[in-house]
């Protein structure tokens, strides 16, 4: 038996899709059956992740990529994730300002999502939203996140091709290496090539990438470092060619694609496991007397934290 909302999603009813994503964001448990239904048939749309520091030009790049894909007749969905204010829980979701020219195009669907500061929950909500978009049958999905924290990096795990956007402005490159972002990037885009010394940034990135990949064997993908000037629409065609090359590489090396899919599935299941445990023990409303009693023992040092956790799990 198929689910009514899932059917509406597959028919491309935009309001149903949008409302379902809202319910995903709110953590509504009553949509589990819908998501189960959609998940079964998803996994066919190439997902391109785009991340990098705030202001690097990610949204402007997405806008230019959309224009190219549309010119090729491809229908594209975008999921744009922005951080929430840690103080108020509110957010200004401003990515789509840069993409406004596509608002009247039915071949483009753009949805903004706030990170909402949830531990692990962002990746989960974003992944579920991606399943919904995937089930709608777009030719491609782009997902933009701000490369700041682990949460955002976790979102990228759900992409098939990950673009890390950097700018010639000095420290970014070092930061990327530090943040462990080098490991998740399939392409390193040096945007704002119209400003400053882009070539220096490119060679610094190349060096860091080679240092990492030279040990990986002949079949490994070597991330290219394309230069773009998104506001001038420069380098976009080359960027898209590099994205397609990565996709072909995965198709030509099915074992690498399989590893990636497995890692994605593992991450998703792990996130759900963590979420189950978190909601069982950590939400103030769910803190059981039993939980608090064990905490009392730890405070009094009659029990250590590790044994306490083990006892809770074996209850």
């Amino acid at each position, binding site marked *: 038996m198929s689910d009514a909302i899932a059917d509406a999603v597959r028919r491309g009813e*935009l*309001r149903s899709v*949008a*409302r379902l*994503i*809202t319910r995903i*964001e*709110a*953590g*509504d448990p009553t949509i589990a059956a819908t998501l189960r239904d959609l998940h079964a048939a998803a996994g066919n749309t190439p997902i391109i992740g785009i991340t990098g520091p705030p202001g690097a030009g990610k949204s402007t790049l997405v806008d230019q990529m959309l224009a190219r894909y549309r010119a090729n007749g491809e229908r594209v969905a975008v999921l744009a994730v922005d951080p*929430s*204010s840690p*103080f*108020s*829980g*509110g*957010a*200004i*979701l*401003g990515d*789509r*300002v840069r993409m*406004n020219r596509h*608002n*009247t195009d*039915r071949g483009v*669907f*753009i*949805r*903004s999502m*706030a990170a*909402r500061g949830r531990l692990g929950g962002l990746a989960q909500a974003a992944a579920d939203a991606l399943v919904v978009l995937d089930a709608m049958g777009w030719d491609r999905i782009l997902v933009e996140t701000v490369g700041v924290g682990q949460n955002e990096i976790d979102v990228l795990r759900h992409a098939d091709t990950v673009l890390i956007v950097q700018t010639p402005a000095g420290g970014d490159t070092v930061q990327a290496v530090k943040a462990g972002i080098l490991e998740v990037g399939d392409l390193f885009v040096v945007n704002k090539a119209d400003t400053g010394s882009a070539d220096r940034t490119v060679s610094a990135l190349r060096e860091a990438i080679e240092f990492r990949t030279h040990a990986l064997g002949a079949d490994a993908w070597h991330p290219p470092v394309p230069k773009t000037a998104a506001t001038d629409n420069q380098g976009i065609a080359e960027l898209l060619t590099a994205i397609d090359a990565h996709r072909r590489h995965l198709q030509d090396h099915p074992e690498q694609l399989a590893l990636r899919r497995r890692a994605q599935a593992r991450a998703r299941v792990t996130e759900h496991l963590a979420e189950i445990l978190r909601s069982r023990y950590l939400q103030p409303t769910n803190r059981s007397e039993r939980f608090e009693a064990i905490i009392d023992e730890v405070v009094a040092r009659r029990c250590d934290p590790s044994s306490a956790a083990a006892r809770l799990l074996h209850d």
Partner: protein
Amino acid sequence: MIGEKIRCLLAMLGTDVHSKGIRTLAQLLRDRGVEVIYLGEHNTADGLINALIAEDADVVGLSYSTATYLHYTRDLLVKMKAAGVDDVPVMLGGLIHADDEPELREMGVKGIFGPGSSMTQIVAFLQDVTGKTLTAP
């Protein structure tokens, strides 16, 4: 439902370019816990409606600094009705003349916040039309 937020689309229609007011409002709303989907200036009614649908916004806020707001607002509300999204409340801010309020209300504008309006009024309006509570101070 737990985890529900007010999602508010903020935009300027037509040729209006004085976006300072709407930017300030975006920040104030964020600080009250609202998720603001910021569309900036130069929007068309059709573009705004598509964004509104995709974003599942609870409410639309328009800011005006020129006298053309009657025309643009009417055009938007007519098109929202045609698109079947006239259930989403529309509020107006900026240089709205008090004399025009009755006409705007008659068109279907739910909230009007001209010069001198306070955040308290806007927040009360948002909670009222969305039925959602803002938890931020």
